[in-house]
């Protein structure tokens, strides 16, 4: 594969493998060096102990016995590992396997490394030994030593082991690196191909994954989850887009038809003005929908905390009551409020007013004549509850989720005026505050806003980002 080679060599994974292999080799070399050092040290210490014990034994003997012991010992050492010799005070050899006292050897010092000079021209190498020299009572010098050639042998063995083990290890590392690199490349190529298809609009495409424990698979599963979410959102948006188009086009179409008809058929100025007024009303309805949509977007996207402060709920309830009482009266609806508590929350007064006004507006709108609307402020557990109840039809079980959808208008109320965005707006305001909206199913409408008491700034942020739903659809209807 001529194309494969350069790409493999350029791949980051392969470079990493190369670095790891080099580090591995370095580590092995250092490790073997350390083992060698330790072994040599151990051997030296051991031979020092042996020769010290030996010389101590010889020193304790009488001169005759010592000579005999030296000769005996040399006889028993065919490998010539041992060095034993006695010299007279002038340095002449009396007996032993050394010709003279080694020049660097300190008399009466501790065991030390010393070089035995070459005497025999046949002997090509100088020997390095551990040796001790002692001057004895009779003035003679006793030298005891031991060849430590084993250390060199060990270093050779170690060197061979490195040569034998390191090269295959290094190659193995490189091979593993190359394999991993190729595998990763293949998967990335696969993923990027699929991602490109998703970017091109193929929203059903998903990333491949194997077992759950593998990092690539974990990532793919997360990305797939994200794609699922996005797909749902995009479909929802498409739905909203259609709803917007429908709700905006209907009044605009009406306006257009009225204007055209007015231009062609109006026989008097009054008729024309009437047509224009109707058309303007149609345009105004479209505009009010646009305004509501923009407002919804504004509330949903802002962390609008500039207007936040202490809001006395009882006072707010009173104002809403004041505002809507004549409207309720006009429809022969009894509206009552119970807000004796001096409860307050941290929030944006204008927005909370808007939310509550929306709920009361809805309650009055959907309650038949002679009915009742009740505004209540109460405290229950850790919550301050704003409750709006009415004796209208309420929200049917099946419709409770839909009412929060933008532009949703129940078929029963198709002809009641409104933008169909009221409850979406309420939900957005409630969410912004970190409060929760509870919608109970009918008969009889009941909606509650639950405000946790003493909600600090931190708590509010948590509530907003938390996974707990901000809107609860209550199955059980409290009596």
């Amino acid at each position, binding site marked *: 594969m001529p194309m494969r080679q350069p790409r493999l060599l350029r791949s980051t994974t392969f470079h990493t493998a190369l670095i790891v292999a080099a580090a591995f080799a370095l580590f092995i070399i250092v490790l073997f060096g350390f083992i060698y050092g330790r072994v040599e040290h151990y051997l030296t210490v051991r031979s020092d102990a042996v020769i010290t014990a030996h010389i101590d034994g010889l020193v304790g003997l009488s001169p005759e016995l010592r000579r005999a012991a030296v000769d005996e010992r040399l006889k028993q050492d065919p490998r010539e590992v041992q060095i034993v010799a006695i010299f007279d005070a002038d340095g002449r050899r009396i007996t032993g396997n050394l010709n003279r006292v080694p020049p660097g050897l300190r008399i009466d010092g501790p065991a030390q490394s010393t070089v035995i000079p070459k005497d025999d021209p046949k002997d090509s190498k100088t020997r390095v030994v551990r040796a001790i020299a002692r001057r004895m009572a009779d003035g003679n010098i006793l030298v005891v030593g031991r060849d430590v050639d084993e250390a060199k042998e060990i270093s050779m063995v170690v060197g061979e082991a490195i040569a034998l083990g390191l090269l295959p290890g290094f190659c193995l590392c490189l091979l593993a690196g190359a394999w991993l690199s190729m595998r990763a490349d293949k998967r990335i190529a696969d993923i990027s191909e699929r991602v490109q298809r998703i970017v091109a609009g193929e929203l059903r495409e998903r990333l491949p994954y194997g077992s759950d424990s593998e990092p690539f698979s974990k990532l793919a599963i997360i990305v797939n989850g994200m794609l699922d979410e996005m797909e749902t959102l995009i479909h929802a948006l498409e739905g909203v887009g259609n709803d917007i188009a429908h709700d905006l086009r209907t009044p605009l179409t009406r306006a257009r038809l009225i204007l055209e008809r007015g231009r062609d058929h109006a026989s008097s100025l009054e008729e024309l003005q009437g047509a224009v007024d109707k058309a303007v009303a149609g345009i105004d309805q479209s505009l009010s929908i646009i305004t509501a949509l923009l*407002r919804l977007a504004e509330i949903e996207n802002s962390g*609008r905390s*500039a207007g936040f402060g202490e809001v006395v709920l009882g006072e707010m309830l009173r104002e809403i009551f*004041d*505002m809507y009482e004549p*409207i309720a009266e006009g429809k022969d609806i009894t509206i009552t409020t119970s807000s004796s508590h001096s409860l307050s929350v941290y929030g944006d007064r*204008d927005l909370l007013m*808007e939310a509550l006004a929306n709920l009361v507006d809805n309650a009055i*709108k959907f309650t038949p004549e002679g009915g009742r609307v009740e505004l209540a402020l109460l405290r229950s557990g850790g919550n301050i509850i704003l409750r709006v109840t009415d004796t209208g039809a309420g929200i049917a079980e099946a419709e409770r989720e839909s009412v929060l959808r933008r532009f949703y208008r129940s078929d029963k109320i198709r002809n009641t005026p409104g933008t169909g965005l*009221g409850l979406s707006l309420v939900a957005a305001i409630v969410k912004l505050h970190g409060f929760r909206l509870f919608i109970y199913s009918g008969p009889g409408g009941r909606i509650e806003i639950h405000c946790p008491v003493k909600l600090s700034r931190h708590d509010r942020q948590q509530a907003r980002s938390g996974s707990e739903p901000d809107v609860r659809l209550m199955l059980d209807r409290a009596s």
Partner: protein
Amino acid sequence: MARVLLIEDDWETAEVITAELSDRNFEVEWAADGIAGLERARALRPDAMIVDRLLPGMDGLAIIETLRNELVRTPVLVLSALGAVNDRVRGLRIGGDDYLTKPFAIVELIARVEALLRRPSETRETTLCVGTLQLDLIERRAKRGERTIDLLPREFRLLEYMMQHCDQLLTRAMLLEEVWHYKFVPATNLVDVHMGRLRHKVDGPSEPPMIHSIRGSGFILRTPS
């Protein structure tokens, strides 16, 4: 004749506004960009200004800020296509006197310009009088001639505002903002219901009406002729 300076970059909008204001006997000067607008404002010393929020050359709010720093107190109505609540707050904080979101009804604009030009002077009067209608702000009592009118607190507030702005067209949006401090437009026609009740109390069956609705626009409290 009041002189109004209009700073608006869309010439068609400017043309309609100019024509409408001229019809109502305003003298209108028009500037199409921010820098020219600021120069005109300095040179002309208009009685009121209508300033678009986004302008070429210089931002509408920057013009107001500059003028306010020069201690020019000319009342300003800010026009904006940005309807965001925060934007409105900013516009008013910087020195705008009123704020109108595009698109707007022309009557709304005229009513607001007139309100700016006739802002009530800060009097220390404790009784407001329009014709025979009297409102005692201390005793919280209302009388029309010899007839005492019983008003609920909310009705009192509404009448007080209308008497302070008598003979001026007050649109529903203006009343919601000023009397009820609503920063949003409610779905139901709240203002009409409240106004209906107030009118019922103020204008007796045999009395000449004082509260007039102007179709499609708003309400006026007029001195009966």
